[in-house]
């Protein structure tokens, strides 16, 4: 299958299918993620979003920012809503009522993916619908005001896991959604970051070239919830990758591959420091939290490297 160029000089001439004028915050990671993903796909796209930031800011009353067919039905069911559309596509194609080739993409936040939407997502993956599910992961329920989610990292202060005098933020680990998806034995699962745009777009391009269910988890900085600077989305995502807080890898037909290995693995504190949600981790009495966070990241990174080494050696 031919894929189009991801060179910047070619990308600048492509139509961005999420129109300007939407109401996402200045510096929002999700808007960047959606635009990058759409730029990487050449075929007509039919998209779906659950209730959330992206949805409420892109289609309001008589206005829509979507230049492609797009549907929102509720919060917990983006995967199956689009699977319904995709099934109708197959039905109409089979009956000769539609001939055009198209691709189906969900853009959902972490709340609609890790938590309330997990059942419907799991069902869609198990049934093998031909669609790509992209999670823009900002690690909390940002649309309702930064409540903790199953994606909120250890230690983060949110409005429902606030760093108080008795409890210092969220004490639980986030779910490993990529492994949960990989456990469905679907053909393609990946993790990406907008700081590494070529890696992100290559993954999207590869995903849509594969038939069957695909899942990509993409880091999506939210400066409102993370309490970082509005123009720091890319800088912070880069730190997430280079501290190995957010490893870039893919699992294709069960085979895991790291797609980026930082030249120098930075301490996780470098990623946490610019974010107000982790400020309390830098208090002397919470030093154990910083150590715990580092330990978790080191363990995950070591496990990923070991898996890759194991697969490379054919064991």
């Amino acid at each position, binding site marked *: 299958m031919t894929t189009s160029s991801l060179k910047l000089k070619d990308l600048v001439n492509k139509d961005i299918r999420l129109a300007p004028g939407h109401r996402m915050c200045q510096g929002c990671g999700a808007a960047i993620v959606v635009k990058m993903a759409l730029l990487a796909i050449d075929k007509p796209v039919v998209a779906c979003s659950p209730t959330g930031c992206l949805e409420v800011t892109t289609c309001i009353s008589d206005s829509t920012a979507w230049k492609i067919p797009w549907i929102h*039905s509720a919060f*917990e069911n983006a995967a199956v*809503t*689009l699977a319904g*559309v995709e099934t*109708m596509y197959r*039905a109409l194609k089979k009956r000769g009522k539609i001939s*055009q080739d198209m691709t189906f993409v969900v853009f959902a936040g972490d709340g609609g993916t890790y938590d309330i939407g997990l059942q*419907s997502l799991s069902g869609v993956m*198990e049934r093998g619908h031909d669609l790509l599910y992209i999670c823009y992961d900002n690690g909390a329920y940002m649309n309702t005001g930064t409540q903790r989610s199953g994606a909120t990292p250890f230690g983060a202060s949110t409005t429902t896991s606030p760093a108080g005098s008795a409890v210092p933020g969220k004490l639980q680990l986030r779910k490993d959604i990529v492994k949960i998806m990989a456990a469905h034995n679907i053909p393609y699962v990946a993790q990406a970051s907008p700081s590494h745009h070529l890696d992100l777009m290559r993954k999207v391009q590869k995903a849509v070239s594969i038939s069957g269910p695909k899942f990509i988890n993409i880091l999506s900085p939210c400066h409102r919830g993370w309490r970082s600077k509005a123009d720091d989305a890319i800088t912070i995502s880069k730190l997430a990758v280079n501290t190995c807080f957010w490893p870039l890898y893919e699992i294709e037909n069960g085979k895991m591959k790291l797609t980026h290995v930082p030249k120098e693995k930075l301490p996780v504190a470098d990623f946490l420091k610019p974010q107000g949600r982790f400020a309390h981790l830098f208090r002397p009495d919470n030093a154990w939290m910083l150590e715990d966070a580092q330990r978790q990241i080191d363990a995950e990174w070591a496990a990923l490297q070991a898996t890759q080494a194991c697969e490379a050696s054919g064991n």
Partner: protein
Amino acid sequence: MKKMTAVTGNEALAEALRQINPDVCAAYPITPQTDMMQRFSDFVADGLVDTEMMLVESEHSAMSACIGASAGGGRVATATSGPGLALMWEMLYVASGMRCPIVMAVVNRALSAPLNIHCDHSDAMGARDSGWIQLWSENAQEAYDNFIMAFRIAEHPGIRLPVMVCMDGFIISHSVGVMDFLADDKVQRFVGNFTPQDALLDVERPVSYGPLIVTDQYHEYKKAQNEIMDSVFAVTEAVASEFEYLSGRRYGLFESYRLEDAEIGIVVLNSAAGTCKDIIDEARENGVKVGLLKPRLFRPFPYAAVAEALSHLKVVCVLDRSDSFGAFAPLYVEIAASLYPREQRPVLLNRIYGLGGRDFMPEHVEAVINEMTDIVSRRIAATPKKYISLRQYY
């Protein structure tokens, strides 16, 4: 000569689905609906239909998938019961708000707790305000006929709303009755081809479904939804007269049985109407002037016509197979609302029967008729809401 067949209600609706051969069908197993979709899955597996089946992981997902498929631009059907319909509740409003002409068989079942798989109408009554059109059916024949007509009503260009066709769980879904099936080609010609409108799959003309609409326009949207409902009466009647031409069976917005010269009347939905009609015939032989009204179109509700049919009566007993705890039951409320504007109106009783599949027997109808007769002859006051056929515990 007509070919009559003995089938269950579930078989009848599975057969209707086979004849209609919808583009997409998404469903989840739940008693007592389950064997309808099992039978339809057989048709799919044997190539008798080429419907795309989605066997999803919950009823919430079943309705979500139906919404996506319907927005995609094709014909969609599903079926559910009791707790399944309750789990769909959020999405029922989305289906009607997005004008998705989905047709759903609701095999009526009680709601938990305590867990009960048998018939009552709590499920569909819980969904009565969801913007779905509701057709109710006394037996398998009516369910089959209503189901076929439902596609025409749902997909009518002036309506484009989802329709649920209700039939009693087990009492109809699992018991064998005599049926007159229409020929496949007759059904297909009657239902016709699906005409997509604002199809999501039309990539040349992209549309957005499901916007955020807040205080500025939401109120008007909901009023518009109410206005569409106003035109459902005429369409339902027009579809019914076309269907009568096809089948010889006549359907109105409700069935009026021996009401014209009656003094007392029963109002009841679905299968219990059959038992009532038998006992009414017996009572008539004994000189009791009793009749019956059986609503068919419950949403939208034909208030004025119902009032016209009932206002001359002295006593009306509304039999409800669902309850509203601490309040009158749903059917009673509609009948009371119908009659209130009338200067002349009957004494109105609300009797709750058959919850969770409790048998509704001829003697229960006789007791209701006797109570109404007493009220007429002795002018005694009656408790407005009571439960009938309660067991006595000592």
